[in-house]
């Protein structure tokens, strides 16, 4: 879904990002600095950086174990990193016991564009995939999408993450998807 972020005047009010916190995880310091300062220019109150998944884990455990206004709100995650990859980190996030960690919106930022990659990221629980190279417009679109269109989380025997189905499309052949109300347990916060 395209979101209009043209520079013409709109009636929509702007977000106040002054208390917003974003964790940027990228092993390449030039790119993580670039994303951080770009987010700062957009008014994001605090950007925290991590050079790999291990450091990112420490930040999340530090900021998000208890729900409060200092929580990190969104993670922007590089995929290919030494020490702990984006995939391993995302798996850890979605498997965590704490609600303030496991429901975290994670925007995967990668140069990989193949359908196989997107499927892998989605199956590990990515909220959004943003294709590099980085631009202010792409970052803004993804952040706005995460804020405006949160998807319900799904837990099945082999998956936990945002609902992977953006559309319910009729399936040709034997449909093994569980779409019926009696197949689901629904929780409202």
């Amino acid at each position: 879904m395209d979101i209009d972020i043209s520079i013409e005047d709109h009636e929509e009010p702007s977000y106040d990002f002054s208390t917003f916190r974003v964790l940027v995880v990228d092993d390449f310091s030039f790119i993580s600095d670039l994303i951080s300062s770009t987010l700062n220019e957009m008014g994001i109150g605090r950007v925290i950086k991590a050079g790999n998944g291990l450091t990112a884990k420490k930040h999340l455990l530090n900021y998000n174990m208890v729900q409060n206004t200092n929580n990190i709100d969104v993670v922007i995650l590089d995929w290919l990193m030494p020490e702990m990859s984006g995939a391993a980190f995302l798996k850890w996030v979605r498997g965590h016991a704490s609600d303030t960690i496991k429901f975290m919106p994670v925007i995967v930022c990668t140069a990989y564009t193949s359908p196989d990659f997107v499927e892998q990221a989605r199956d590990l629980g990515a909220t959004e995939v943003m294709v590099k190279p980085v631009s202010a417009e792409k970052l803004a679109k993804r952040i706005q999408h995460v804020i405006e269109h949160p998807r319900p989380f799904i837990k099945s025997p082999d998956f936990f993450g945002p609902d992977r189905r953006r559309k319910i499309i009729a399936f040709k052949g034997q449909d093994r998807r569980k779409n019926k109300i009696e197949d689901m347990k629904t929780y409202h916060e």
Partner: protein
Amino acid sequence: MNNSEENNKIEVYHRLNKLKQKTGFGLNDDKVGRIDPKSITRAQNHIDGQEQEYGLIVKEILEDLAATWKELQTCEEAYRDDLIDQIYNYSNNLKDLSSTYNHDLMQHFSLSLRNFCEKIDIHKDAHKVIVQAHLDVMWITLNENLKGESSPKAEELKKIVGQAIQKFF
């Protein structure tokens, strides 16, 4: 319904939109917010302004690549995989950087080297030639500030690497 069927049910969690609330909207606010367009323009100007660092950062990465490559050729077997991973990461970083600023030729070579890392066998002289060819053309690309892929010089450099791969691989 027995316990097994109950346990196999899909669980659906509908969460409050606290993210939107944190940006100054009400929890049940239907209004669509936006990121201030002027701030997006400012942010893009900032990204564009950082291009002045491009040459320096590429030089640093190429020096790291060259040093790691040199080490890889003489190191003990136990360290080889780690060093190949490092070369893969440097190439990947170089690709990300060059694509950000539309340096297509550098992007082409760094992607090619990154992909070749998955096949490197250090015992084969042919593979050494291919990696060295990548490093040589990337230095030329930087030093001669070659940006696009279609100039005669760019075509010539791509041909050098292409021939090395075709001949030795």
